[in-house]
């Protein structure tokens, strides 16, 4: 699904070169749920941004679903992102002027999905996250947990095969965090591949595989008790 070979990312200022990622290698298989951990400034978010094609990289090769991302122009990357990737952010990143229905509709608009199909998908997704009755509410009228569920509904609306979550529970209390995590686990069981950046070791332990990034490199990965078929396959692949 996702293969990064020797990815390097350098931020250049007048005086300083900062290596956010160096010789970064990672393979994520279809159906996996991976937690990415690491200290602040280690390069987790840079990795996620590159994985989501929100940022370019300085060196190496990134293949997403067999497509060499480095060979795509901006519009092609936007199309690919729209078709295959869903994002969930720590700060929810809902558009404040749009109601829930319209927020969930955004990726579908850019994909050119017909109105009737959009309506069906949006209603399904809001139903899935338990907010079907609040479609006309504005984001600021919801709690943090509810907003994150809307963000998840938005990520799901495009029926992506690959979900990137950046500290999805970072702004939530423990109860809401658990609810969101359960929702993500359900989405993974339904077939989506998820890469989640988190600081929370409890959440990380709930995923079948953990990646630790230190100083812009994959320092370690730990395999936990996976429940899905992909986890079993991975276990056999790594000899666990």
């Amino acid at each position: 699904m996702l293969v990064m070979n020797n990815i390097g990312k350098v931020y250049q200022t007048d005086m300083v070169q900062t290596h956010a990622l160096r010789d970064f290698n990672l393979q994520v298989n279809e159906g996996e749920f991976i937690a990415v951990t690491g200290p602040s400034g280690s390069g987790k978010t840079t990795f996620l941004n590159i994985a989501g094609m929100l940022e370019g990289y300085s060196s190496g090769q990134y293949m997403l679903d067999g497509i060499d991302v480095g060979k795509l122009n901006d519009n092609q990357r936007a199309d690919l992102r729209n078709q295959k990737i869903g994002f969930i952010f720590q700060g929810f990143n809902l558009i404040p002027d749009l109601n829930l229905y319209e927020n969930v509709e955004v990726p579908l608009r850019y994909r050119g999905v017909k109105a009737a199909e959009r309506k069906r998908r949006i209603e399904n997704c809001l139903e899935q996250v338990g907010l079907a009755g609040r479609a006309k509410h504005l984001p600021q009228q919801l709690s943090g947990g509810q907003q994150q569920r809307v963000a998840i509904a938005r990520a799901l609306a495009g029926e992506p095969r690959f979900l990137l979550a950046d500290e999805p529970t970072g702004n939530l209390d423990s109860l809401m965090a658990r609810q969101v995590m359960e929702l993500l686990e359900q989405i993974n069981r339904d077939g989506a591949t998820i890469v989640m950046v988190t600081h929370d070791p409890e959440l990380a332990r709930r995923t079948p595989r953990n990646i630790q990034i230190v100083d812009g490199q994959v320092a370690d990965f730990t395999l936990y008790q996976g429940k899905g078929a992909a986890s079993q396959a991975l276990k056999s692949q790594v000899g666990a």
Partner: protein
Amino acid sequence: MFAHYLDLAWRSLKATPLATSLMALAIAIGIGVTMVSLSVYHMMSADPIPSKSSKLYAVQLQVMDEGQTYHSADDIPFQLTFLDAKNLYQTLNIDKKVVMFKSGFAVHVNNPEVSPMLQTTRLITREFFAMFELNFLYGGVWSQSQADNAAPVTVIDETIAQKLFGRSDVVGESIYLAQRRYQVVGVTKEWQPNVKMYDLNNGAFADAERIFIPFSHAAAYEIDTWGNTNGWKREEINNFTDKMNSEMLWTQFWVELENDKEQQALATQLDNYIQTQQDLGRFNRKTREFSLRNVTEWLEYNNVVSEDNKVMIGLSFMFLAVCLANIIGLLLAKFLKRAPDVGVRRALGASKTQVFYQHLVEVALLGFMGGVIGIVFAQLGLWGIRKTSHVYESLATMDVSMLLAAPSIAIVTCILAGLYPAWIVCKTSPATYLKVQ
């Protein structure tokens, strides 16, 4: 997608009412000023007689002695002498020709309740009405016999008829031009070309005359001109007969020609006429010079729309540019404030092109709003100009093309102004805003 962008644009503009009002106002002021000068220019430069502007020709003769100069581009006087006008009318073998000049009278009727009024009057030959497309509501032009006999007959327009009689159908009624009684033989529909092309000597944008009498009355009743008289040599003028026989220039002569062949034939006749006059001791030049210019050429030759008007257009567009420069800053601030939303849209699959397009639709909508308000400002400006002088009554107006041009110019210029802010926001890295929002 356009409808969606339009919806987003409307919401965005509604969300920041103060900034939107300021920007719309800036555009409206710029558009208002621009449309005022553009509308006046448009009306000044409009073809006054589109169906005939390539067929009607003003005739000029170089009557002045060798070495004499005139303030025209080719040194040929704009007007003709009374003598030449009369001669050409009598001798030229051409159907559609008219000789004329401007005069005027105190006009009154046998009704003490109607106040006398001072009115300009045009002395013309019969062909004037057909050649310059005046339409008769009642009656018609006087007969050739009446013209030859200097019969006291007149054609007036409906406005004069209404003023004097309170109705338009006044054929057969009598009016007095000074002390002479005239019978009305025809009433024309109101006629006011945007440029008084047939006589530019007394104000290109002056009102057209509303009373017409036969040209033969000039000699018969010694009716003098109310227009400009140009002299180019010292002459002893003791009475009106002297003036009619002098080299003073005060009449206009027009012909209507259908094709190049007719034009060539007329040129030959004019050349022959000058030669004949040279034999009589006039037209003391080595070369025989005359000129035939159609309406379009005539207006350009007379510099009807001067360079000043064009400079004014340029200045008003510069003012619009200043107004737009002001909104660029506001747009930039507004768009960058919304950069986090743009980051989200980019993350969700919007391309730079789509983000760019979305913002251009917003500035286009802003331009449309500014353009519509600008029309109101322009109307106020034009109303103010009309109030300064009656000369501007027909010029300081907006026709349909200008009404449509106002929002179009506003939209196009706003899009131009919005290109930079839209480009800045669309090339913003989405990752910058997603983490910190």
